[in-house]
């Protein structure tokens, strides 16, 4: 196995960090990625919409939530709670601030180019965006009358093709 000097800094996967973390034994302490730290929090509170969460993440919300598991044993407990709370508040506030744009653009019926916006969304936001789009697309499909048309299932279409190949081969 490997042995490490006390105090060395390493990059490890989140799952490993979680496994090693134990507030009583203090094996490791976790350093917050810069996007979750003070300086970036100011940017978020100024205007959360400008941040490219995909570039910074792309799992900003997910990772942010997981990071709350790690207490920094150097800080007094109260300050830690506040820090965690502030981190969460920031994530939540960020989500709230960006929500409107995601909703409006995913439900926009004019097929305007939304790719610029989507590029800057983190994965959670993208999933939401696609849900909004689906709702809209289903509606438009219904409006055009496609909802009541019976179309051949792709399974059946492929079956026909395979049969022909068998005859030829």
């Amino acid at each position: 196995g490997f042995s490490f000097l006390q105090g060395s800094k390493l990059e490890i996967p989140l799952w490993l960090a979680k496994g090693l973390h134990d507030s009583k034994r203090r094996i490791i302490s976790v350093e917050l990625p810069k996007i979750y730290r003070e300086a970036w929090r100011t940017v978020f509170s100024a205007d959360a919409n400008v941040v490219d969460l995909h570039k910074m993440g792309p799992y900003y919300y997910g990772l942010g939530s997981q990071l709350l598991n790690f207490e920094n044993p150097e800080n007094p407990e109260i300050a830690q709670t506040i820090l965690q709370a502030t981190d969460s508040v920031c994530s939540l506030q960020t989500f709230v601030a960006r929500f409107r744009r995601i909703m409006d653009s995913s439900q926009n019926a004019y097929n305007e180019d939304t790719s610029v916006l989507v590029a800057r969304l983190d994965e959670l936001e993208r999933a939401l965006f696609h849900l909004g789009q689906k709702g809209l697309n289903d509606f438009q499909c219904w409006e055009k009358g496609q909802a009541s048309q019976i179309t051949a299932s792709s399974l059946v279409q492929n079956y026909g093709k395979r049969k022909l190949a068998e005859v030829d081969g």
Partner: protein
Amino acid sequence: GDLGPFNPGLPVEVPVWLAINLKQRQKCRLIPPEWMDVGKLEEIRDQERKEDTFTPMPSPYYMELTKLLLNYASDNIPRADEIRTLVKDTWDTRMAKLRLSADSFVRQQEAHAKLDNLTLMEINTTGTFLTQALDHMYKLRTNLQPGESSHSQEF
């Protein structure tokens, strides 16, 4: 149930699917519902634009009925094009209102909302998006409580 009697020249009430079917077979003329009228729809559209709350619609299926009747029986409906536009305008206003509502709900991080007079069509178009968003918000919010039991495992 029972339908009829069908006497030529006399109007009779039937289920929509039958009406459409008979019309397609050119066996009848459809009489539009009382609210499917330019004057009435203009009133509704204007009220929708003016009020912050949702106008009670003359039918919980106003979108569906408008689509069906205008598609299959527009010749029986006076000023059909205007009606189509009016209904679409009202729909657009209602959807915009719904999004506005959703946004202020999210901003204020409310726990409950009551939206009267929405029709199923409107709810279904934005519904999945909204419930997922609120789900995420809930998870983010429960992260605010410190302690080991509050972290979410899956995201």
